[in-house]
């Protein structure tokens, strides 16, 4: 059974990959960044980070 540390590590790997690929990400009311699919699965309100390169 996957323990919590594995879940957290897998999530961070997915976010790092999203950064590398330039995939869109969203931000929850607590400020947590997630992929759009992840947030939809949890049914949370989230703001999509606008397109554009960080300066």
């Amino acid at each position: 059974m996957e323990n919590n540390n594995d879940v957290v590590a897998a999530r961070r790997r997915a976010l790092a990959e999203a950064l590398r690929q330039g995939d869109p990400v969203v931000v929850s009311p607590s400020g947590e960044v997630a992929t759009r699919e992840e947030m939809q699965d949890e049914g949370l309100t989230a703001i999509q980070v606008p397109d554009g390169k960080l300066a």
Partner: protein
Amino acid sequence: MAYYWYENDPELYKAEVLAMRKFFPSFQIGQLQDGSGRLYWRGKVQPLGEGGMVWDLMLIYKNNHPHAGQDEYGGSIQILPISPRLKDIAQKMMPLLEQTYGSYDACVKRGFGLGLPHIYRSNFGRNEEYFICTADPKYFKSGQSRSTSAASSLSWACKWIMLCEMWLNGEISDDVALEGNY
């Protein structure tokens, strides 16, 4: 015509408050007590969730909000981390970067002149502070019908924090931290 954007454009003020209440309800609005009249939002975020750091942030409107000049990184909303303080982290990173790139000049050339990716410095009160440089000015919207809000700036900042923490932990490379298409 009033000097402050929130007096000139009460509809924009309402829209700013509504967006923050919707997307970041824990953030509170206030006014700087420095005589500038500038409004700010303050609250905490944890962009990496469990296992990540909690960041106490201030989002400070410039009085020309929503207008931003070509060289105003982050546009008309400045994002200042109160805790952790960027200047402290950057000063710890600088010697490591100098070791990696061989000299301070090489760090500057690479884009790490301040010790962290995508930050800028500016005076705040009596101190010089380091701010999150959220978005290239060309992406900052300041037109008649659409403008970049505190809520969208904060979402950019959360993405920057994620990037910064991952870079500090060695989870993404210098190239991705500096040049990635994100």
